[in-house]
């Protein structure tokens, strides 16, 4: 799953540690999500969406959907 977490974080001048604190996870988890090594759970994705004031699909998206796979 791809995501815009790094861009959104950079737009708000947040460090990984600050974002991790706000989402109540470790900095390692934020880094793993940003680099695409780990997909967050739905509750964590919702927390991120609430924090940035966006919908989940505006932050995370499945590349398979771009290729027409449903």
């Amino acid at each position: 799953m791809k995501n815009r977490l790094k861009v959104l974080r950079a737009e708000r001048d947040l460090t990984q540690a600050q974002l991790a604190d706000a989402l109540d996870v470790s900095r390692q988890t934020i880094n793993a999500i940003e680099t695409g090594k780990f997909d967050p759970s739905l509750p964590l994705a919702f927390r991120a969406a609430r924090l940035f004031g966006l919908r989940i699909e505006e932050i995370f998206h499945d590349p398979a959907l771009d290729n027409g796979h449903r």
Partner: protein
Amino acid sequence: MSIILYIRTNKQDTMNQLKPLENGYETRTRTNVIQLFRWCGVWAGTCALLTFGPKFLWNKASVFTLLAIGLNVCVGIATVMANKKYFDQLDELQRKVHLNSLAITVGVAMIAGVPYSIMDANHLLPFHADISHLMVLMSLTYAACNLYGTTRYR
């Protein structure tokens, strides 16, 4: 200009939600690790008491040995509860790393433990098999898997 304003507003909104956490994830995890470490230390102490006490402290008096066993079990239960609390309060990635480590550790313990026991029963080992050997193997496997998992997602 409007884009900058939009980003600034968004930043303000986000920063407003970044309230200082008195008991944030890192602090909570550190506290849980320290508590778990303390309980492990006490449990190791009761194990030492149980091992050496009957011979060196109370001359194999059954009452004291039974009391030491009771103490060891009680402290053991508290250690397990501290471990459970530590796991419960980990975030999802850390829990995944630990779950993978546990899965491999249990598998290794079963795969190595059964032939080890059979070899001992058939006198194929040059030394006496001991449960502590299995515990050392499990500890090393768990530590290695955890290290691998942690560096993999770094």
